[in-house]
């Protein structure tokens, strides 16, 4: 279930690791749009861990889990449940 607060926090985190405007479509690939590159991705994961007080285990370090706002939100939701 979408959580407005979680999504707002997620967007805030994304803005800290990229200087580009965030996509309007939550399903748009953050990698293909050039918003995230291979070195911004580890920054994003670290920032998510800090913001949401979680530890992303190595087995979850799959770029596809972080490929769009929707996918990241789903991952955070799964971690919270």
């Amino acid at each position, binding site marked *: 279930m979408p959580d407005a607060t979680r999504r707002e926090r997620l967007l805030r985190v994304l803005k800290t690791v990229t200087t580009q405007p965030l996509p309007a479509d939550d399903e748009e690939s953050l*990698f293909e749009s050039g918003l995230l590159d*291979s*070195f911004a*991705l*580890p920054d994003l*994961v670290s920032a998510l861990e800090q913001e949401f007080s979680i530890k992303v285990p*190595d087995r979850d*370090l*799959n*770029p596809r889990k972080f490929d769009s706002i929707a996918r990241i939100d789903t991952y955070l939701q799964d971690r919270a449940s």
Partner: protein
Amino acid sequence: MRAFLHGFGMHVPERVVTNAEIAVRVGRTPEWIESASGIRERRWAAAETGVADLAIAAAQNCLARVGVTASSLGLIITASGSARPGFPGPAAEVAAGLGLESTPAIDVPMASAGSLFGMTMAAHMAAQFGDVLVVGAEKMSAVIESAALDPNSAMLFGDGAGAVLVSARPGPWEILDAVLHSDGQYRDSLTFDWSAPLRMNGLAVILQAARKLPSSIEEVLTRQKVAAGDVTQFLLHQANQNLLVRVAKSLGIPAERVYSNLARYGNTSSASMLMAADEWSQANPAPGPVVFSAFGAGFHWGALLARRV
């Protein structure tokens, strides 16, 4: 395990390949390549030069530095991910090139983490075999040129070889501990088999390396109760300058504590860590703990802690 590092050696081909030369071929600018990787130039070997030739030159340099003759070696370990497939691997040719006729020689067909795995194996085997020469040698230009150039990988790699002598005899640096890890579930993220171009999922590689390099370093440091801040030098596989900076940040240490020669040699895969160690050792390094660490295709990764005796 009680083993010592006696000294290092290295060899690079003469031909310097600048970013300007690569940029023309891959459709990028020299400045973009340096910004993305920290690399300004790399060395490429001549067509007739093989992985074993590079390895032999580094081995001879190492043996001369430590004052050991090849005939006294008990074992040779040669790591390479770019040696031609099939058998025999380059280890036997390296042994023959050093004039040895019966000394055992083992191949470690592993790319970037090969030298670290070889060093750790050597540390455990030295008590039985005596002096162990570990060599990491790569002709990555052959990998790059084996297929149509891929801009993301062609700009990174260079040729070279590094070597270290590991022995149970007391030497300048004592190996205190080492950790090695492998995780085959990401084996498709970085592959090369001579039948197709090198394939690299940069996102997966960097994401995993950025986590696993510092975690393995912290693992070995914690086990030996050494603080990262007390380590005088970190000698890592030279993959990408941005990755080296990130590892330093994760460990909470100044970036300059992580040795880098990426600008001059690029990513030389299994050779790079020992090439960095050789340059570092020749610069009269400060005493104190030193950490070796590498991550590469497989994925394989780990860290080794040594201290100046």
